[in-house]
């Protein structure tokens, strides 16, 4: 039942998105009118309508599934609700934040100075605790990648 509830939430989000896309985004950001053949907005509108229809179908099928399950459910045994936001997800948010910071630093300070630091942070986040190994892998990887891409393949990393 937890999965069905998650699906209903996603279905509602997608349905609202399709309504916003159809009524606000497409009229404002899809321009042009064809005098022969299909207009530029035809396929975006078609896809948005289908998005709305299938989102509704997802909501209704999952709701029906919950309704059927509730009828059959033993009241004493209830499924454990799994929190979407849990400890593991905070680790994911930290990883996203580190990658986000990496892109900003990469843009301003280049590959060579930022990569070892970010790599070390990521390895720590993934569970490595041996500082010598962190230092070794982060520096070695940076040097190898730098020579491979910048010097070998002539792909500028700045």
């Amino acid at each position, binding site marked *: 039942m937890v999965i069905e509830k998650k699906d209903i939430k996603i279905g509602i989000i997608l349905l609202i998105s399709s309504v916003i896309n159809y009524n606000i985004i497409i009229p404002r950001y899809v321009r042009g009118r064809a005098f022969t053949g*299909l207009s530029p907005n035809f396929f975006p509108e078609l896809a948005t309508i289908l*998005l709305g229809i299938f989102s509704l179908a997802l909501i209704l099928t999952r709701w029906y599934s919950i309704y059927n399950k509730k009828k059959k459910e033993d009241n004493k045994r209830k499924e454990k609700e799994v929190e979407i936001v849990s400890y593991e997800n905070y680790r994911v948010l930290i*990883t996203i934040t580190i990658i986000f910071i990496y892109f900003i630093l990469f843009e301003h300070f280049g590959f060579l100075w930022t990569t070892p630091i970010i790599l070390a942070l990521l390895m720590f986040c993934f569970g490595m605790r041996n500082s010598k190994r962190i230092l070794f892998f982060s520096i070695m990887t940076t040097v190898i990648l730098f020579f491979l891409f910048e010097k070998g393949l002539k792909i500028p990393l700045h």
Partner: protein
Amino acid sequence: MLTLGNLFAVIIGVSFGIFMGAIPGLTGTMGIALIIPMTYFLDPITAFAILLGTYKGCLFGGSIPAILINTPGTPAAAVTVFDGYPMAQQGKAGKAMGIALYSSVIADAFTTICLIFIAVWLAKIALRFGPPEYATLIIFSLTIVASVSGKSLIKGLLAAIVGFLFGTIGLDPMLSTPRFTFGVVYLLSGIPMMVVMIGLFAISEVLIQAEHKEKESATYIPVSKGGVTWEDLKSCLTTILRGSLIGLGIGAIPGIGATPSSFLTYSETRRVSKHPEQFGRGAIQGVAAAESGNNAVCGGALIPLMALGIPGDITTAVLLGAFMIHGLTPGPILFEEHSEIVYGIFAGLLMANLLLLVIGSQSIKLFSLITKLPKSVIFPVTAILCTIGVYGFNNSFFDLWVMLLFGVIGYLMRKYDFPLAPLLIAFILEPIGERAIRQSLILSGGSPLIFVTRPISAFFLFLAVVSIFILFSVRKKTKLLN
């Protein structure tokens, strides 16, 4: 062709191609573009030995990270992930890479032989493809969505529709007016496929793995015991032949490329399989299908290039440039005036096939060393590698943000059990399909009958209807079995 120099050239080409394919973000097209300047002063046969070796090596190389770390090295290897990665998780990484190698070599050899004997004839058929034929071929290809949707067809269709919408971002293909660009100049050319693919598959995998901290001593993938047996290969031969024929046909049609070929081969193999429920969970035929469909395009794409001077895909478009640089004009005249070069190139292609088998098997041993590294090294390095690969593609920082966005989208999709493949398929096929449909309707004055009155187009529509019907039956059968 059979000189030590040319042999050495093929070895360099194949090795470099495998390397380029194995690193996410680097592609065969990029590899060939990088190596062309080094071939200026070589004679044409040696030059093409290196270039075509690179092309072949890259098509196989993309499967290595796809199998080991769920990160396709090239767009065409996105399908290899479906069964290759689960096989690796079951401790069969060596077997998966082995069957990928054998499938690649056999399919590639098949289409190379077809190129040698029937290039001109097949090219004439490919020339009969107009917008209606492209449109119905894309519609047929989209039926793949049903077979890669996993447990929920509705979720698969929703993912495909979202991918379709992302594919419309950029300039309208007919009128060149902006769509969904929000005033951002970067978006005028649309979102690059490589960025979407790496974000959806690679970055999302990094985020999934970030959820669980591991002990430092733990290895990520159990080391595989044993490679491909004769029984394994025998069970995949029909699949490899199917992939070879599909890849040959798709490759010969200009503008389609290896990615739809591998998706189509996978879908057809699953459809006819006695155990379709095993696909997506480590079926060896799934890997064979993906790689044979993918690699067979190499020979197929060279057919319109050499016979007519029309490149079959992006990589052969770059090769066309290489031909020009060496003073050769691909087409019928090439066969008449430079037949010794043409047959030298054919010999080079066959040599590259053979060397792919040898070099590929050694590279499998080398890349398998990755499995000995802990997860806390593999995935942070993967994230950095993806960053460099994506940045190196266009030298654009905006690409990095888009990659991260798709990484988060991919992560959320996986958490909510939405399949990634339909989004990618629809995203890739939307531009080709939309342009073809709109061109067809302009040609017919708005009448949709053009899709049924042209025989090849009607045939693909018929295949699409049959495919949908069969796929629904298979899904129903799978549900009953479960």
